[in-house]
């Protein structure tokens, strides 16, 4: 399913590269011992280093380095044994040192890739060019004082990983899938919380177009700071269309930085090439020795790596016989994959049915109540037990659904609830038979109608029986007995 933009003259394809900024999960900042946690009193989690005070020197946080290595390994990437911190020089109110410490020509992580799934279910491999460590900037608040902007440096110096893809995505969908996958990987690794709303994961998109079939790379525009996957897809769609319109009208695209406006669903110029900064990158002399990653460190991190989503999904399919879609949905979050595996361990719980119960009934309750799998009250063991109880006929599916709500509300296991509320399914044929006889007797015209061929009336009888048994009768037995009695 190729993404093609139809112009008046040509058909066009889009070329997309993404730069993803991930805030590293760490206690302290990249170069200081101030807290990396956000929020709180302005300028409170700021050391003199982060505020660029005279004579202050950066010292790199070893854990942030490990997090970058871990992410690199998760992206199947080369880990550079030696990398170099460089200064990116520019003046801005939220940049206290007058430069950002980043990595330029020698990043900590080199070539890697991740695999995304396309709409038709096939896989596509997207190349990753590099990952580097850098400092975040502070923030400006504009509405506190007339004529002034207020500067809060709490974020200044927090570690970021910038992950740069190769320009290998060719539709908004692919870009979205890449971001989703990237988010999932960093969350699984525990290197970034992936929270796009709060800005701990941000993205810039480099977009260009070319006539279908051509291999040229035309001038690209950078669309900055798109803070959701949906916006990213919209921004790319708009930007690509804009390029096509410009080209088809005989114009040319200028290399520039643009901002996406979600309300108008369009991008607009932020700064043109003439205002492009001359960043004067050079190796930071305060950190002049190379950042060294030893073999020992790489081996240790490898041994600590969790199973990543793709591997785990593959194992779910192989080990539990799950359908591909179910496996994919379960591994979208580490918490849901863990939950499933715990539930599926319960004796008598069929893995496929457990997955189904989880992805349909449990998921519906979670969506309804806007809670996440991490915060659910129902223990995974209870869900597994619930599957087993349906399986052995103790309860019906409808009761199971009710029990999910009850378990969540009462924080109690299914067995005790079934006992207390008398929810055990009635499978006693004689008892059900008696009820059915009474119902047929009380509804002679419907029975007559059924026998005359109105088979839809079966539903009416099933409903009546369920009503009479308080929903506890085994539906299989009801159906079987009703068919026997009514055909007499």
């Amino acid at each position: 399913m190729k993404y093609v933009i139809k112009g008046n003259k040509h058909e066009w394809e889009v070329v997309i590269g993404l730069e993803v900024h991930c805030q590293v999960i760490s206690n302290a900042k990249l170069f200081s011992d101030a807290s990396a946690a956000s929020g709180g009193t302005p300028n409170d989690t700021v050391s003199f280093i982060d505020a660029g005070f005279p004579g202050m020197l950066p010292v790199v946080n070893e854990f942030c380095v490990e997090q970058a290595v871990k992410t690199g390994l998760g992206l199947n990437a080369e880990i550079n044994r030696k990398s170099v911190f460089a200064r990116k020089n520019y003046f801005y109110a939220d940049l206290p040192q007058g430069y950002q410490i980043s990595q330029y020509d020698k990043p900590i992580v080199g070539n890697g890739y991740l695999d995304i799934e396309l709409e038709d279910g096939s896989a596509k491999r997207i190349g990753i060019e590099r990952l580097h460590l850098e400092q975040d900037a502070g923030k400006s608040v504009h509405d506190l004082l007339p004529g002034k902007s207020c500067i809060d440096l709490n974020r200044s110096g927090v570690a970021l990983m910038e992950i740069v893809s190769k320009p290998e995505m060719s539709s908004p969908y692919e870009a979205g899938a890449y971001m989703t996958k990237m988010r999932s990987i960093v969350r699984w690794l525990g290197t970034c919380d992936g929270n796009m709303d709060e800005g701990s994961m941000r993205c810039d998109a480099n977009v260009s177009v070319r006539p279908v079939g051509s291999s040229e790379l035309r001038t690209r525009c950078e669309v900055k700071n798109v803070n959701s996957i949906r916006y990213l897809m919209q921004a790319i769609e708009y930007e690509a269309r804009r390029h096509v319109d410009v080209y088809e009208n005989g114009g040319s695209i200028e290399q520039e930085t643009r901002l996406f406006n979600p309300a108008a669903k369009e991008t607009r110029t932020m700064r043109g090439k003439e205002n492009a900064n001359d960043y004067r990158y050079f190796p930071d002399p305060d950190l002049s020795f190379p950042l060294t990653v030893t073999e020992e460190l790489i081996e240790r991190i490898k041994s600590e790596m969790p199973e990543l989503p793709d591997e785990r999904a593959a194992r779910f399919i192989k080990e539990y016989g799950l359908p591909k879609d179910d496996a994919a949905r379960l591994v979208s979050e580490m918490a849901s994959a863990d939950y499933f595996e715990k539930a599926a361990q319960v004796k008598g719980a069929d893995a496929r049915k457990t997955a189904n119960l989880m992805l349909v009934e449990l998921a519906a309750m979670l969506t309804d109540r806007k809670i996440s799998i991490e915060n659910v009250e129902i223990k995974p063991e209870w869900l597994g037990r619930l599957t087993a109880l349906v399986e052995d006929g103790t309860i019906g599916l409808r009761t199971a659904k009710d029990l999910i709500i009850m378990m969540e509300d009462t924080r109690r296991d299914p067995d005790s609830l079934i006992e207390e509320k008398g929810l055990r399914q009635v499978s006693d044929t004689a008892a059900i038979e008696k009820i059915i006889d009474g119902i047929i007797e009380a509804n002679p015209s419907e029975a007559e109608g059924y026998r005359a061929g109105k088979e839809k009336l079966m539903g009416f009888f099933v409903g009546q029986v369920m009503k009479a048994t308080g929903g506890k009768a085994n539906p299989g037995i009801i159906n079987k007995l009703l068919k026997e009695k009514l055909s007499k």
Partner: protein
Amino acid sequence: MNQLTELTIAELSDGFGKKKFSPSEVTKAYIENMAAHREYNAYITETPEEALSAAAEADSRAAGGRRLGKLDGVPLGIKDLFCTKNIRTTAASHILENFIPPYESTVTKKLLDAGAVFLGKTNLDEFAMGGANITSYFGHTVNPNRRKTDNAEVITGGSSGGSAAAVAGKLCAGATGTDTGGSIRQPSSYCGIVGMKPTYGRCSRFGIIAYASSLDQAGPMTRTVEDAAIMLGYMAGFDEKDSTSADTAVPDFTAALNKGVKGMTIGLPKELMEEELNGEISLAWKEGREILEKAGAKFTEISLPNMKYALATYYIIAPAEASSNLARYDGVRFGLRVDGKTLDEMYELTRSAGFGDEVKRRIMIGTYVLSAGYYDAYYLKALEVQKLIRRDYTEAFKTVDAILTPTAPTTAFTVEESKAFDPVTMYLQDAFTVPVNLAGLPGISVPVKTASDGLPIGLHLVGRHFDEETLFSAASVLERR
């Protein structure tokens, strides 16, 4: 003249220990001297009250026989580039005129922990950029030595000119300096004192206002080689707050003082021997060589073929780093602000008013050599040449233990004379000291004689990385002449 201020650090320590006099008495004597010699303009900020209270504490330690070591109670001057907690620190710049650091530099903290008494913050070239101490916002310093031929007042050299004047003029027993291209050694030579720039990484740079981070290094400025060895012992050491500080053990430098130079091989760079030097400087160099030879050192010619590129290399690398290091002076968080309608206007007005001409010139050069299109030709090329210079020294130190040259090409000059210099001529004053910073090596300037005009001449010894001890051994021979 007060006898107490004539004593060396070693003598003071001895006297304190034997209770011949107290830290407070010595401190008071220095405070009197400071007041009597404001014409040197050696101090930007004097801190007599803090000094007296620190001295009183040292008094009681001395009285109770609990002295912390040789520096306990010794009055020092601190170059106003070291951040000192709650004491104004200006870098001799208008832009930091009212800056009061809420923290202490590692070097000054070590000195305070050793019981040293700080008399105040000494004058310097603005942000340590200069070789004559004439770029200070607080006015130039004056050399306590006068030129006999015309009784002219001469400059101290720079950038640690205030420290040099204070030590030479007996306004402190010793002082801290910093040296990026010669800023300890060259003023020491001009003022007739001892100045040691240790190996890069020997002293922590934490809390020292940066000029060129890859070259800046703190060191002692004293009246004797022994005092320099004592002071450096307290200033040096690994600091986890400075990634470039060396995790190398600090030896007892004073143990090297009496080792002599027997068996030592000292190199003379042939490139310098072939150059036409100032006659008196050349003579002093020759005499220094004779002293060391008499004491048992062997001399041999070495070659430093790339030394001729050192100054040009320095004047690319240092301004490049400075242009970035000084970007933080923007009127937002500390220091001077000149308001503007926009952010950029505020930046420009603040920085233009806050920085002096030499600082601006170096920021401009530094910005230029890092800018798009020029980076490779200037900055990258300079880094490559720096490697050549380092290799020259590595090669030379395969055959020699130390290298002897003059510290500076001339003796001190007057402010008027310096005004006639173009920037490049001014930069040439550092020709013998700059290569040492580029190679990260230790160097010491020792006063050896007085020129016919009455002004001091210093000789310069350069050693291997982390081999300050050899320099102290040789320097103490030179000094004893």
